[in-house]
C-alpha cells in the first residue's frame, strides 16, 4: 500500500489526542460534599466495570476515528484489481490526425472520435505520470495533461501521412527509456497502409478501436507531359480507392476549368490542353468531393514556354549533333542561337566541351580567362568514373577520359567526386567530350534526355519541377533560395534536403535573384486514400498480442494494468464514519446507564 499524500500521515499524531486528553483529565478532581454518597457508591459499584470498559472502547474508537481520517487524507492506494487509480506511470498517446482522420463518418469527423478517445485516456492520468503526445508528425513530445488536452482541443487533420507503427515504435522507445512503468496508447483509424510491419514496440501497446471508415476514392497521382508546354500538353490522373463507377474529374489552371473527363479507381483520366501562356501556372486536378475531401485535389505546376533555340558547332562531336537533331525534330528544341554547343568559348549561353586536339586546350583556357571564368581545363585523366548529379541519364553512364577541372563555382555533376559539369553564368563546361572514347553516355538511352535537361534546364535555365508528399523530406535544387506558396514567401534555411510544407499546394522555387527556378508540388500521400482498417490479427502481430483493439470500457480496464491501484481514502472515511456513529451511540448511551 502506498500514499499519494504521505505528508498527511503526520496527522496520525492527532490520534493520540484522546489519550492525551484522558491523561490530562486524570488530575485530582474537585471534591463535592454530598450526603447521599452511599447511593452513589452503590451505583458506581454496579456500573464501574461496564463504564470502564465503555470508556476504554470510546477512547479506542476516538483514536481510531482520528487515525482513519489522517490515513484517508494521505490518500492511501493499494495494488488491487478493482482500483481505478494507478501508480506513477509513463504513457505515450499516439493520436493519428493524418489526412485520413478528416474523413466524415455518420456526420462526424473521424478525428473528433479519435480526440474523444484520447481525452478519455488523458483523463485517466494522474499528476505523477510522465506523458507524451505523438501526432501526425510522428514525434513524441513530452506534455502535461493540461497541455495534452489543450493540444487535443485545437487539433486539426493534417495533410500528411502517418505510419502509425513507426510512430508507436518511436513512442515506445521513449516510454521504455523512462524509469516509470509505461504503456503506449494508439488512437487511430488504423488504415491498413499505416500499420507497417516491423519489430514489436518495446513497451506495452494498447490500440483504441474506432468506428468503421466510410468508402473513399481520391487522386493518387498526376503526370504532366511534356514537362514544358509549348503548344499544349496532357495531364494524366490516376485514381485510387473504392468503387468502380466513373466520377467527374476536372483540371483547373489559374482557377479556370480547362478540361473535364470521367474516371474510376484503377484507370487513368487523361485531359489534354491546347495552348497555355508562357510562364509558370498553378493547376489543380479536382475530383468530386466525397467523405474524405483532402484527397480529392491534386496540385500541379504547369510551365508554358517556347522551345529553346539551339545551334551545334562541329567541335561538339557527331553524337551531340545527332541528338540535338532529334530534339529539334521532337519540338523540344528549335533552330537558333539562344544556346550554342561546341569546343569554343562563344558569346551568350554556351555549352563548352574540351577540344579534340589537346594543343587547342591552351587557347580555350585563355579564352575562359578573358571571359572572367574561374574554371580551367587541367590535366587529362583516364580511368573509369561514375557520374553523380541531378540530370537525367547520368545513372548508367561511365566516364573514361576527362580533364581535371580547376576553379570555383557551381558544380552541376561530378565524376568520381570531382567536378565534371560546372556552370558559371551563361557558360556550362563539360570535362569530357560526349563521345564513346571519353564516356559511355552517348551510347546509352539516357543520352537524349540528358542533353534535353542540360540545354533546357541548365544552359537555358529551365526550371525544376519537384514533387513531394505533405511534410515529407524533399531534395530541392541548390539554386532555390525560397519558396513562394499560398502563404507567401518562405525562405529556405538550408540547401538540399528540406521538409516539404504540410499544406498541399504549388510552391514556386525562387532563385537568389528572385527568378522562378522551379516548382514544388506538395500533395497528399496516396497511401492515405484507402481507408480500410487493419485487421485485429494484423494489429496484434504488429503491436503485440494484447494490443487490442479495445472499445472504450475495455481500454479503461486495460490501461495502467501493471500499475493499477485502488484509492482506499473512501474506505477509510467510511470506516471513520462508522467509528463516529458507534462512538456517538456509545457516548449517548453513556448518559443513560440504567439499572439492570
Amino acid at each position, binding site marked *: 500500500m502506498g500514499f499519494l499524500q504521505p505528508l498527511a500521515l503526520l496527522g496520525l499524531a492527532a490520534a493520540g489526542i484522546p489519550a492525551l486528553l484522558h491523561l490530562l*483529565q486524570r488530575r*485530582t*478532581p*474537585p*471534591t*463535592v*460534599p*454530598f*450526603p*447521599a*454518597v*452511599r*447511593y*452513589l*457508591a*452503590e*451505583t*458506581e459499584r*454496579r*456500573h464501574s466495570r461496564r*463504564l470502564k470498559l465503555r470508556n476504554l472502547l470510546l477512547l479506542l474508537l476516538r483514536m481510531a476515528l482520528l487515525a482513519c481520517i489522517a490515513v484517508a487524507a494521505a490518500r492511501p492506494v493499494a495494488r488491487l484489481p478493482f482500483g481505478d487509480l494507478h501508480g506513477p506511470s509513463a504513457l505515450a498517446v499516439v493520436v493519428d490526425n493524418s489526412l485520413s482522420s478528416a474523413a466524415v463518418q455518420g456526420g462526424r469527423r473521424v478525428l473528433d472520435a479519435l480526440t474523444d478517445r484520447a481525452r478519455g485516456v488523458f483523463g485517466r492520468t494522474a499528476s505523477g505520470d510522465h506523458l507524451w503526445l505523438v501526432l501526425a508528425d510522428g514525434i513524441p513530445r513530452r506534455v502535461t495533461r493540461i497541455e495534452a488536452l489543450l493540444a487535443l482541443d485545437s487539433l486539426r487533420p493534417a495533410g500528411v501521412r502517418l505510419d502509425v507503427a513507426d510512430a508507436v515504435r518511436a513512442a515506445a522507445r521513449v516510454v521504455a527509456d523512462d524509469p516509470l512503468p509505461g504503456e503506449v496508447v494508439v488512437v487511430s483509424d488504423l488504415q491498413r497502409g499505416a500499420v507497417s510491419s516491423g519489430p514489436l514496440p518495446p513497451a506495452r501497446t494498447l490500440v483504441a478501436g474506432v468506428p468503421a471508415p466510410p468508402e473513399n476514392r481520391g487522386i493518387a497521382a498526376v503526370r504532366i507531359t511534356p514537362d514544358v508546354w509549348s503548344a499544349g500538353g496532357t495531364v494524366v490522373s490516376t485514381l485510387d480507392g473504392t468503387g468502380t463507377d466513373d466520377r467527374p474529374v476536372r483540371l483547373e489552371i489559374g482557377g479556370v476549368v480547362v478540361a473535364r473527363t470521367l474516371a474510376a479507381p484503377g484507370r487513368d483520366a487523361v485531359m489534354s490542353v491546347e495552348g497555355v501562356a508562357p510562364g509558370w501556372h498553378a493547376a489543380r486536378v479536382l475530383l468530386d468531393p466525397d467523405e474524405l475531401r483532402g484527397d480529392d485535389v491534386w496540385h500541379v505546376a504547369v510551365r508554358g514556354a517556347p522551345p529553346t533555340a539551339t545551334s551545334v558547332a562541329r567541335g561538339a562531336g557527331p553524337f551531340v549533333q545527332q541528338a540535338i537533331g532529334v530534339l529539334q525534330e521532337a519540338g523540344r528544341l528549335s533552330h537558333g542561337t539562344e544556346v550554342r554547343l561546341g569546343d569554343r568559348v562563344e558569346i551568350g549561353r554556351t555549352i563548352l566541351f574540351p577540344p579534340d586536339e589537346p594543343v587547342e586546350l591552351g587557347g580555350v583556357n585563355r579564352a575562359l580567362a578573358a571571359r572572367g571564368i574561374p574554371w580551367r581545363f587541367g590535366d587529362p585523366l583516364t580511368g573509369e568514373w561514375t557520374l553523380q548529379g541531378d540530370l537525367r541519364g547520368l545513372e548508367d553512364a561511365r566516364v573514361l577520359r576527362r580533364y581535371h577541372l580547376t576553379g570555383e563555382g557551381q558544380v552541376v555533376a561530378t565524376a568520381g567526386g570531382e567536378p565534371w559539369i560546372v556552370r558559371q553564368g551563361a557558360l556550362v563546361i563539360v570535362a569530357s567530350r560526349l563521345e564513346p572514347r571519353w564516356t559511355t553516355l552517348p551510347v546509352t538511352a539516357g543520352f537524349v534526355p540528358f542533353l534535353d535537361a542540360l540545354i533546357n534546364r541548365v544552359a537555358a535555365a529551365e526550371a525544376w519541377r519537384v514533387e513531394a508528399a505533405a511534410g515529407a523530406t524533399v531534395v530541392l535544387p541548390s539554386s532555390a533560395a525560397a519558396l513562394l506558396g499560398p502563404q507567401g514567401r518562405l525562405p529556405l534555411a538550408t540547401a538540399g534536403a528540406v521538409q516539404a510544407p504540410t499544406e498541399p499546394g504549388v510552391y514556386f522555387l525562387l532563385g537568389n535573384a528572385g527568378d522562378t527556378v522551379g516548382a514544388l508540388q506538395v500533395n497528399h500521400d496516396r497511401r492515405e486514400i484507402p481507408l480500410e482498417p487493419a485487421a485485429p490479427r494484423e494489429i496484434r502481430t504488429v503491436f503485440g498480442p494484447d494490443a487490442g483493439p479495445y472499445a472504450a470500457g475495455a481500454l479503461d480496464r486495460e490501461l495502467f494494468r501493471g500499475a493499477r491501484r485502488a484509492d482506499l481514502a473512501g474506505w477509510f472515511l467510511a470506516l471513520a464514519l462508522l467509528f463516529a456513529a458507534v462512538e456517538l451511540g456509545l457516548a449517548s448511551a*453513556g*448518559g*443513560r*446507564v*440504567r*439499572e439492570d
Partner: protein
Amino acid sequence: MVGGRLDLLDPYDVAELGGIEFTAEGVVEGFLAGLHRSPFKGFSVEFAEHRPYQAGDELRYVDWRVLARSDRLTVKQYEAETNLRSMIVLDVSRSMAWRGADRRLTKLGYAQRLVAALSLVLLRQRDATGLIAFDEEVRAVVPARARVQQRWSLLSTIAGLDAGHGTAAEPALRRVTDLLRRRGLVVFVSDLLFDRDLALLAMQYLRHRGHQVMVFHIMDPSECELDGPPEARFEDPETGAGVVVRPREFRAAYRETVRRAIVAWRHALRRVGIAYFPVLTDTPFGHVLRRAAARRSRLG
C-alpha cells in the same frame, strides 16, 4: 407572597419571612384553614367531654343536639383522643445540614419547620407532644405533654437545634419506647442515610408496642438527580467517604438507585404498618402535612 397561604408557598420563601415559630404558625394556620376536619384525630370511642368547635374540626364530631339546644357549636371529645401522646423523632446529623442549591433550605432547616408545624397541629388538638433530636446520640429530649407551655418548650428546642455529627437512629427510637409508655404516635423525620436494618428493627419494636409510626424521608432534590462538574469526588460530610465519578455517566443509574432505595424503604416500612413519606425540601409544607393527615386519617 405574604398575603398567601404559607403552607402552599415555597419552603425557602416561607423561611425567609421569619423564625421557625412564626413560619410554623403561619403554615399551620394556612393548613388548618384548608381542612374541614381535625387532621390528626384520635381513634378512641369513649366520650370524655365537650369543647368549643374550632376551625379544622370534623363536622361529624359536632354535637348537633347541643347546637339545637344552646345554639353553640361544640364537638365531642373522646378519652383516647384527648390523651393521644405523640413523639417526634428528628434527625439532626451532619448529613441533614446540606442543601443542593442556595435557594433551598437545608434538609435540617426544612425538617425543623416541618416538625414545628406538625407539633403545633398536634398541640392544637390537645395531644401530648414531645420531641427527641438525635445524631450519633440523643441530642435533645422534650417529653410529651399537652400543656400550654409545651408549645414554647418544643419550638424553642427545635429552633435551638443545629447539625451534629454521625447518625445513630436506633438508640433514639429505643429511647422513644421509654418516653411513650402508652400507645401513641411516633413521627420519625430523617434523611434515612444510615443503616436501614437497625432502624427497621427499632421501628418494628415500636409497632410491636402498639405505636403508630410515620416516617418522613427528607431529601434534597439534588440528592435525587445527580449533577456537578464533569468529574468530581463526591464526599459524605458525615463519614468522609468519597467516590470519584462523572455525573453525566451515572446520572440515570443514580436516579434509578435512589428510586430503588425509596421503594425499598416504602416496602420495608409498609410490611410492618409504618406510613412512609418521601419529602423533597422544595415541597410546600402544606402538601406534606396534608399527605400525612390523609394517611393518618386512613390509619385512624
